């Protein structure tokens, strides 16, 4: 056998092996990285949010308490002061913020070192991911939760972006005998027919409250205040008496427009 023949055979055999292996990882970047966290500090107007026990009043003059608050934050990107943009890789950019659950009030990222002056994220789950193969929906996106704390509508395939429930004496008695309000807001625009789109992009300028300085050996924490009173008080004054249950309906658009304004950058801990 000549050397040429052996080379030809090797060339033929080699791709057979490589065709079986998974995609190779791209070479790791030599870019310097460090830790950056974003804290979602849920408040109600001038008060800290206390699940179950706190009592609050909305612009319609109705008192209420909150026993569940959770929302999706996804597609995070950050602008550096030098004008460059860092986008968190899509596959690891879905987070569920849950009030009252340890480690579910912030997201921690590994980002290139530098100074960041602006933060942008989606409140909800983008339409592309909402319609992706189930195998690509792991972690926070796994639709395995129950009806109570789950963030997924099975009957109308799609994620619930924002869920807030609580009690209000103003809300009428529901079939369970409680004066309960339930806001389950979602709607990615529809798969086969256009429908409501409650995906909200939030962009926050970090300069007034302090840029995030991501440095080696340090964690920078972007501290956001999330005022859920804005859910009721915004371009629409939402009344618990008139709209105690809002789920997949046209009215949900008003609530989503309201809550899109609830994020405020308070300060940065560098």
């Amino acid at each position, binding site marked *: *056998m000549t050397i040429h023949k052996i080379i030809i*055979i090797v060339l*033929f*055999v080699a791709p*057979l*092996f490589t*065709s*079986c292996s998974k995609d190779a990882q791209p070479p790791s970047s030599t870019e310097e990285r460090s830790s950056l966290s974003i804290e979602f500090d849920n408040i109600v107007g001038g008060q800290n949010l206390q699940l179950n026990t706190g009592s609050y009043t909305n612009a319609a003059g109705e008192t209420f308490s909150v026993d569940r608050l959770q929302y999706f934050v996804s597609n995070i990107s950050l602008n550096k002061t030098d004008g460059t943009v860092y986008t968190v890789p899509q596959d690891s950019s879905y987070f569920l913020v849950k009030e009252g659950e340890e480690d579910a009030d912030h997201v921690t990222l590994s980002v290139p070192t530098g100074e960041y002056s602006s933060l942008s994220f989606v409140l909800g789950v983008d339409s592309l991911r909402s*319609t992706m*193969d*189930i*195998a690509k*929906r*792991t972690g926070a996106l*796994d*639709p*395995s*939760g*129950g*009806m109570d704390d*789950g963030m*997924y509508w*099975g*009957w*109308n*395939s799609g994620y619930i972006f924002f869920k807030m429930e609580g009690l209000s004496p103003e809300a009428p008695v529901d079939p369970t005998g409680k004066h309960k309000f339930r806001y389950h807001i979602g709607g990615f625009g*529809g*798969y*086969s*027919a*256009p*429908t*409501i789109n409650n995906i909200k992009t939030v962009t926050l300028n970090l300069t007034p409250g302090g840029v995030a300085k991501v440095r080696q050996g340090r964690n920078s924490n972007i501290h956001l205040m999330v005022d859920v009173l804005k859910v009721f008080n915004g371009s629409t004054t939402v009344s618990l008496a008139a709209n105690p249950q809002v789920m*997949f*309906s*046209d009215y949900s658009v008003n609530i989503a427009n309201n809550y899109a304004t609830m994020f405020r950058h308070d300060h940065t801990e560098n």
Partner: protein
Amino acid sequence: MRTRIYVIVMLITAAFAACHKEVASLFRGFEKPANFNTPAYKLENNPVTEAGFVLGRKLFYEPRLSRNNTISCGSCHIQSSAFTQHGHDVSHGIDDRLGSRNSPPIMNLAWSPLLMWDGGVFDLDLQPIVPITNHVEMDETVENVISKLQQHPDYPGMFRQAFGSPEITTARLLKALSQFMVMCISSNSKYDSVVRGQGTVFTSDEQAGYEIFKTKCSACHAEPLFTDNSFRNNGLSIANNNDEGRYTVTLNAADRYRFKVPSLRNLAYTAPYMHDGRFYTLDAVFDHYSRQVKNTPNLDALLQRNGVLGITLTTAERVQLLAFLQTLNDRQFITDPRFSEQ
């Protein structure tokens, strides 16, 4: 030299074998019937294997999918009734709770781009979440189902055979169920043998009925699936529960009272009929279309032509049409042991 060639041959064989774990078996996987179109289901994302199909079938008949381990998919989708719940107008789930709609057949779902009477589910893989979590069906969570299956003596091994490792995830659970469901193909009715030219012919009544069907029914119940997969208001009177059908998932006023056009295949086995099972016999269905169509919002244009509501059918036409429709029954499908609880 001979040894060297031998080694090379072995290497090539090993390289191929690494990609193909399954040894040759009688299982033929997903096969599209010759008279059917390209499936809507993305088989490339979930290739059907024998181990996956067997696992999916076991899961389909698994009562652990429900809160108190009493209800399986097969409880409301019974093979002998073409995977519907015979004798029930609306589905009858956990703790004797009743749903608001009639169990649709598990049949030719690979060709169904949207699932459910209202089309609210756009991927077969996402469909089982609905009955599992619905309070009147199985009233369970997928998370709990997975933990029950993990403790079962058989499932971890079956997941390993189907997916390469014993890990049970939401995606694997749902994909195994899809592998079983897409295999439930009904394509061996007399009609299929006739159109595929397999030696069978229609009787004169069946042929006459086929011509009537093509003139009066096929605009919605399009061949070869006998549905065009559209959503239409077929003029049923509005029931007390005011089920608004497709409107509930699109919030588009033009979709109010529209429901999915069901397939006419296996109709001898799938009574009762309509989204709420209000008609127990085909005679009642014929009566509806010929005399009882109501002019409710969004009534389909095909049911109000020339100012006349419904479809005119003479007594003789009804007999012939019925003869043709009976050729859509597929006895082999409802008795196929591959689809039965093992």
